[in-house]
């Protein structure tokens, strides 16, 4: 039996004005994501995957339709409310890591706790544990520019999970890494997400994750289509 859906996307449309023509990215898109599950979204470059993640996180707003998280509609909320919601409930992992260059490894990881005023000793301990888990013990004081791509992504994973969000959005987290490193990162993400019972939505080209995900979607012509594994491959 399934838990109620954590995330519902209802009739989402999104288009951009480019020069003098309108480019529709998402067209009346419908989807639901169950809590505690992992979903992989695949699709060609430019099919709107990053846009979709931005809409889910509230960074961007749809032209029409509704994003509902835990039964609450994010659409129509003020930007401020959406931001606060994101701060608390969403963790973000980017293809290009996007660590804050002026913060050390530890500071980057503590940052979401600070944002959520959760810098309590147990949480700090949890953060240290996370650093251990992502294999960066001893590198706490390093700045991001001293880390390899894989290490940076580990920091990003820790940062995305440190405040125990219910929804983790990952945008091609292994896209910028070699296969071996990519696999390690993927294992780490899956392991930690499972540990936290969080929902993971990952935009990816990785076959491995596509195989391991609970659900597989294809973003094609503005629609999200539940895909059979075979089909995706």
């Amino acid at each position, binding site marked *: 039996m399934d838990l109620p859906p954590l995330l519902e996307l209802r009739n989402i449309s999104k288009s951009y004005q480019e020069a003098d023509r309108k480019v529709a990215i998402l067209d009346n898109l419908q989807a639901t994501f169950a809590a505690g599950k992992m979903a992989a979204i695949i699709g060609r470059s430019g099919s709107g995957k990053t846009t979709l993640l931005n809409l889910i996180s509230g*960074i961007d707003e749809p032209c029409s339709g509704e994003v509902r998280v835990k039964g609450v509609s994010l659409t129509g909320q003020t930007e401020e409310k959406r*931001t606060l919601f*994101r*701060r608390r409930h969403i963790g973000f992992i980017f293809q290009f890591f996007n660590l*804050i*260059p002026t913060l050390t490894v530890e500071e980057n990881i503590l940052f979401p706790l*600070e944002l959520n005023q959760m810098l309590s000793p147990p949480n700090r301990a949890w953060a240290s544990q996370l650093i251990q888990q992502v294999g960066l013990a001893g590198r706490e004081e390093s700045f991001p520019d001293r880390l390899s791509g894989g290490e940076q992504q580990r920091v990003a994973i820790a940062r995305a999970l440190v405040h125990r969000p219910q929804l983790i959005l990952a945008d091609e987290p292994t896209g910028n890494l070699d296969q071996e490193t990519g696999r390690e990162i993927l294992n780490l993400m899956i392991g930690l997400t499972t540990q936290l019972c969080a929902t993971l939505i990952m935009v990816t080209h990785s076959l491995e994750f596509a195989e391991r995900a609970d659900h597989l979607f294809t973003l094609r012509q503005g629609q999200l289509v539940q895909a059979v594994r075979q089909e995706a491959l």
Partner: protein
Amino acid sequence: MTPFSLLTKASSRYYFHTPWLTALALFSIALGVAVVTAVDLANQGAMDSLHKTTSALDGGATHQLIGPPGGMPEQHYPTLTQTPAVDHAIPVVEGMAYSPLFPQHPFILRGVDLLSEATLRPHLGETLHPDRLLTLLTEPNTAYLLADTAQQLGLQVGDRFPLVANGQAHQVTLAALLAPKNPLIREGMASFLIVDIATAQELLGMVGRLSRIDLILTAPDLPTPPPGTRLLKAENQQESLIAMTRSFRLNLTALSLLALLVGMFIIFNTITFSVVRRRRLIGLLRAQGVTRRALFILLLKEALLLAIPGTAIGLLLGIVLGHGMVELVTRTINDLYFHLPSTPLHPDPTSLLKGAALGIGATLVATLPPAWEATTISPATALTRSSQESHLRPQKGNRTLWIGFTLLALGGGLLLLPDQSLAYGFAALALLIVGSAFLAPRGTLLLMSLLKRPMSHFFGLSGRVAVGGVVRNLSRTGVAVAALSVAVATALGMGLMIHSFRSTVEVWLEQTLSSDIYISLSGTLSTSGNPMLKPQTIETLKTIPGVHQVGFGRKMVLETELGRLKLLILEISKARFNHYLFQSGDPETLWPLFQNGQAILISESLAFHKGLKVGDTINLPTPGGSRPFTLGGILYDYRANAGLIIMNRALFQHHWHDNGVANMGITVSEDYPVDQVVEALKQAVATQSQGENLVIRSNQKLRQASLDIFDRTFAITRLLRLLGVVVAFFGVLTALMAIQMERFREMAVFRALGLTRKELGRVVVLETGLLGLAAGLFAIPLGWLQGQLLIHVINYRSFGWTLLVEPDPFLLSQSLLIAIPTALIAGLFPAYQMANTSPAEALREA
């Protein structure tokens, strides 16, 4: 299209993509250049005016024979024309005059012998109608004016107007208008009222006497100048006037260079920033095979592209500013040194070239460190994001600290040198400023560690993030804090100096002006033709009820072996004498010596400039030849920088055989109100008037008038200070905006991680506010130091004035009042812009 032009494009497009920053950088360069250029132009303009006035009417002469105060016997002139060494001689009778109709336009009444002038300079300009010429020669009280001046005053040929000269009212007829073709000469003549030499003698009360004789000598010298006269080489004469104002002008130039120094900090900051921001691009270029050398040149070329339009705008701005400033400079010279007519400004090409060279040079110099830094970027590190911060903090901080302390020590050492030169003073000032600037980054760190807790307490998350931002962006924030504190400190230091100076003058006036009422002849500046109070007038005024005690004074200009000095002749009571502020000499023991004519007093500035001390003797030209006088005391005096000698009236009379006095100081009996006595005196003068124009002022009014003059004198310094603040403001705006714009992506990540717009805006504003606070705090000691240097070193070495009043320490808080609001304003724009940009957009550009 060559690859090189593509390279240029690749890097320079940056400036088009950040138009705001580019514009502000341009503006910083422009402002720095503008201030320097304007001051240089104004100085140049004032000196031009000096050249013009002296050469418009004195040009061609090799020497000048200067008469004693009141003039030399006119018989010297025919004697000189018969002297073999004299090729040409031109007699001049000159004095000041004014018309009650045009109180704002005092005239230099110049009596010329058209005939001897014509022989010297026959074929220049156009002709004068003979009827007009004859009028001037044959009719008394006829005068010429420059056509422009006449138009300005609304006078036409044939008009009669009142003229006060030698304290007497006359009616003068305008006989002709002069319109020389040469515009420089036109300007030089603007304040001249030209009359025949006979008319000048009659109007100025100098019948039988000449002010001076301009000479063309065939020999290098006159064997024996007539007694009581001094022979000056024409160029020396002008040279000495120019030298007199040299310190003053150097002072202005140095203050303007201070503005440029601030400008350089801003440029340095801009370029550093542009390099830091393009590390990735630079790395890419290096990876593509662009050599270090090519990269270095590329960055210098870019700086040049920024410098050229910036400098051009600066020059234009400088010309505009200079127009206003020349008036102020001229006025100051007028008040401090000698009469100088104000003339409109002609942008001197050398000044403009200097400004251009400085602007471009300063930009390039400020570019060198960041450009060098850029070439050390290896392609690999550049390709990763942010590679600056991790190697920025510890050792580098120590190195800057050492450099800073070394510079400070050097500056301090310079001050201790026995050589009291002004140049060393300014060099020391510059070293102290730059040295302190090096300390700014470390100081910022220290301050932030102190503020971490309170900021977190008061502003929560935003406060913590802001403090962290300042610390972590030290590579950029350090420079910005340094630039801002230097700018604010400069403004502060100058403010302290002005304040101390004005308070000193106030105290001094209080002491020196100890009579209750002062009476003087109006419209009379002390040149050679010195108008005197009539003895019967003095007698009348003495008898007015309420007049208790009377003192007398007279001022004149003396050409001495020490240059042109002001001579003040006094007959005063012991009580008033005791009121004077003595730098050396004890009034009790000095009084009898002064009274008996055994000692004279000199001003501190004269003693300083000429290295004189109590007990020295100086030779002064008297009608009976050069005579030695003993210096009994040195007085604090702030009325003239040209140097002042004070002499007892009896002593003067003994040597000069001249009993005249030009002003009176009256002590009022205790039971009479001062205002009532002033009224009584005015009425007595009105009924008894013999054509004399007397100004009767209470102590209060005279003090106010003197302070007004002081304020006028310092208007230029105030303006420079204001400009310093403006430069600082825009510099900080640029620096802080640059810092924030550079963190655009970082801020977008913050937003993605869940920082709200409001919080982000607050972070930005708090950060710049913290920078402002840091700069404002550092500016306090630095400004105090600058103020002390300006007061005790620069000012003293420039003018020889000791300032007796220390500035009000409360003024120091001004630095925070300047720095913090500036910084907050600087934060508003980036805060607004960042808060209103979708993080999606910012994150896109990976």
